[in-house]
């Protein structure tokens, strides 16, 4: 089931129920879905619910929620919604992904732009859209995957028609999306998007000079931010041990304290103490909370699942024949992978403090739905269809 049926393969199982002869939606889905990506994504969702049992009360205490399990409960609801969303999206055809992605891109851009103009300010950034029933939506979480899909469409169009200005269109899209995020301001998401789109541009055949230019612009932007934005300067100073910034320095040390407190196997579920001193334990520092309660074993487990999801997924995605599917699936997997990497790098103090959620594990409805759409699209695009994948060397050997 894991590999396209080669000619000459035994036809006996074709007669079995729920086999390839079964054309019902569920059977079709089961046969063609990529198990590695699916299982990894579900593991992350489940792990996130477990982690929220530990991180939720700590976050609730810090934000002085009346119910200690307020975050945990909502996390569970969001996780369920995310699983349903992901499954539903995974049923879609690539063309649906294109249509939906484009529509979502338009809506999310408008919402993000609207928010920049009249936004709910949380911690100094206009990121949240107030919805009825007390819900809040962070349109940037929807903007990210939809922008990757639209960029993939542009690059795929160029692959089909070399004269199509896919590269410039992509750059324009990136400029618009990243510009909106930077205006919020959310420099972390801006950088994340730039890195992912940069990789896609390279895959889409952009010249090296363009990438070098982007990297240079990014570096210049960082220098400008360092000298103009006070908290960026504080965090970078704190990371490199330059003078300044006590509070942020402490945040980062608290995350190392949590991990070292956990040791190899952790202090046990619910037994964490350092977690209460972590800011945003339930979102930006959930990796450290897991480190304290489940120890190095838990951390390596998380890293392994993300590696399996993103690296295993990429290995499949880059073999997709259809350029759109290839670019979109790779880009979306990179989006998840780079975001996870930044979160974990910050938590183990290999990068300056940057509030970035750990996909599917951190608390946050918008983020979780955004990741569900992302991985749902990846699942949809990586489904096994006729001619979907270029054969791997072993397939060629078998045919030869």
């Amino acid at each position, binding site marked *: 089931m894991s590999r396209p049926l080669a000619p000459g393969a035994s036809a006996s199982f074709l007669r079995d129920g729920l086999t390839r002869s079964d054309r019902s939606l569920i059977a079709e889905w089961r046969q063609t879905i990529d198990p590695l990506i699916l299982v990894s994504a579900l593991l992350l969702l489940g792990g996130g619910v477990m982690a929220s049992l530990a991180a939720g009360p700590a976050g609730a205490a810090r934000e002085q929620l009346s119910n200690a399990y307020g975050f945990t409960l909502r996390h569970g609801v969001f996780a369920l919604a995310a699983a349903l969303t992901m499954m539903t999206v995974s049923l879609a055809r690539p063309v649906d992904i294109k249509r939906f992605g484009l529509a979502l891109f338009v809506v999310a851009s408008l919402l993000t732009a609207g928010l920049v103009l009249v936004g709910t300010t949380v911690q100094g950034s206009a990121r949240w859209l107030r919805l009825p029933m007390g819900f809040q939506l962070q349109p940037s979480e929807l903007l990210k995957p939809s922008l990757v899909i639209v960029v993939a469409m542009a690059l795929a169009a160029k692959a089909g028609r070399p004269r199509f200005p896919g590269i410039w269109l992509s750059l324009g899209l990136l400029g618009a999306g990243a510009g909106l995020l930077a205006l919020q301001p959310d420099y972390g998401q801006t950088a994340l998007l730039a890195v992912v789109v940069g990789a896609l541009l390279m895959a889409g055949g952009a010249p090296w000079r363009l990438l070098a230019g982007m990297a240079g612009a990014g570096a210049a932007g960082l220098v400008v931010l360092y000298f103009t934005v006070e908290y960026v300067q504080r965090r970078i100073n704190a990371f490199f041990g330059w003078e300044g910034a006590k509070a942020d320095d402490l945040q980062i040390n608290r995350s190392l304290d949590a991990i070292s407190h956990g040791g190899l196997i952790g202090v046990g579920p619910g037994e964490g103490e350092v977690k209460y001193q972590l800011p945003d334990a339930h979102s930006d520092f959930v990796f450290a909370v897991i480190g304290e309660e489940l120890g190095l074993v838990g951390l390596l487990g998380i890293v392994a699942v993300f590696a399996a999801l993103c690296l295993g997924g990429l290995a499949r995605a880059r*073999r997709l024949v259809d350029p759109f599917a290839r670019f979109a699936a790779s880009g979306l997997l990179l989006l998840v992978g780079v975001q996870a990497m930044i979160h974990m790098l910050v938590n183990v103090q290999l990068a300056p403090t940057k509030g970035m959620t750990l996909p599917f594990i951190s608390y946050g409805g918008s983020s979780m739905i955004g990741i569900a759409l992302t991985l749902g699209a990846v699942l949809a695009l990586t489904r096994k269809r006729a001619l979907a994948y270029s054969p791997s060397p072993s397939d060629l050997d078998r045919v030869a």
Partner: protein
Amino acid sequence: MMVYTPDFDAPMAAPKRKRAAGSAPRPVDFAPVRVVWRDPLFWAGAALALGFAAIAVKAGAVALLRTPLKTIAQAPIAAPEAPTKPISTEIAPPRADLVDRAGILLASSVLTPTLFADPSIVVDPVQTAQAVARVIGDVDAGDLAVKLTNSGTRFVAIKRGVSPRETAAILDLGLPGIKLKKDRRRAYAHDHLAAQLIGFVGDDGEGLDGVEAAFDARLKAEPTLPLHLSIDLIVQSAVEEELQQAMSAFNASGGMALVISAKTGEILALSSLPSFQPSAFRTATANQLRNRAWVEPYELGSVMKPITIAMGLEAQAIAPDETFTLNQGLPRQNASPLRDSRLWDDPVSIEEMLTFSSNVGPAMIAQRLGTDGLAQGWRLLGLNAPAPIALSGSAAPILPSEPSAQTLAQIGYGYGISVTPLALARAYLAFAQDGTIPELTVLARTPGEETKRLRALSAETAARMRGYLRAVVETGTARAADIPGYEVLGKTGTAEKLDEEGGRDRDRNVASFVGLFPGWAPAYVVMVMLDEPVASDGAPRATGGATSAAAVGRIITRIGPVLGVQSPADSAKEQP
């Protein structure tokens, strides 16, 4: 060029791109890149893999190699704006034992678990409180439920010093947010004995009062080395018992008793009643926590007269052999002359005036001394300042700033001046030996340690005063304290408290006696003070002579043998 769109419903087919090497058509440029290292997506994945590997390595290094925090509370406190206080897992630091001068244990630290709740984790406050109350006897479920619901903290102490049985029962419940932490509690071996002097320790192991507070740093710095107090446990318990009995006998509202060594300045016993258990200081009433020995100044009355006389002698305002005519009294402005209640056989010697506690005589002497003379005397006897003691709260005396002639007269017999009993007892130390006052201490002196002494009086004045004070006990107001074999010296005082109109209330007294013994070479000052004693049937007034002098007598009877006081004559007889 066509855009490849897979047909969802197309039948499965073998890949068509099987081709022989060499004859292969140039791959269409949208086809996946075959050579992995030419594929930017491969490198993107490789970069990601590198990042994950770095995270795994760093996480491993931090988890396994970074020095784990011993206690979280030792780490610097979280960002100052942090709204929640982290739970301290730190237990109170080890603390040295307190022992008496003979090495008998007074206070020690024991490890016991503390049961507490973290309300932010408790799921159902009411059910949790009920479950806890079922297994822990002295917990009120309703009370705890309220605390769990309304508390803004992350730490609600439920019970300190939980028993092993209770610990097991609590762990069996497995309630979220109900936790145990190791803790150190201070245990006091002798209940309320010397409570005000020993003091107490807070839940965090911080000494809060008495010796526990004054020597907090020492007790924490050298936790294995017991701190020897100057207290003698046997003397202390005798003193406390006799004070309690005197208080009960005269229905006094409070009392104070102390024994100080005149040779070394060591406080051998000190008691202020009613008192409390230092281990349960939180439940003590304000009245129990009162410290009548060195925190509250009193108008002590006649016990101040020897001070006036000694100052007069010292300043040569009076001559030792001078006599006074007291019957005509001391003229006062806008009032009848001050007279004594008894008729004197004029002229009266200093000894007689003290023996029968004249007010007129000391008033005359005080007026002769004047403001400057009194101030000089107080300075020498240490009555112008708080009693110098290492413990906190020693109160300054209340002295009139610019006394009129009438106030000066009052001061002569101990009114209009308030001092703490400890400060007065310290001044009496000057009479004991050669007129010097030893440095007070609550710690046992090491053998051979020299005691710092301050000269207050000449040796001659001290000797004269001993003669007068012996007469007071032998023939005067303090005969109740005249214990055979000890030749007790001393002076009684019965100070009437001020009533609401500023007059004197005959029924509310402070009755005291300051004694010295043994008479041939006074080595100890013993003082008893009773607050508002009530006359027992038959006796006209609960005077210092009737109440406190008798109590001092009983104390000396009990502690004399303990302290090894023997008259030289007796010692000589024992020698063969």
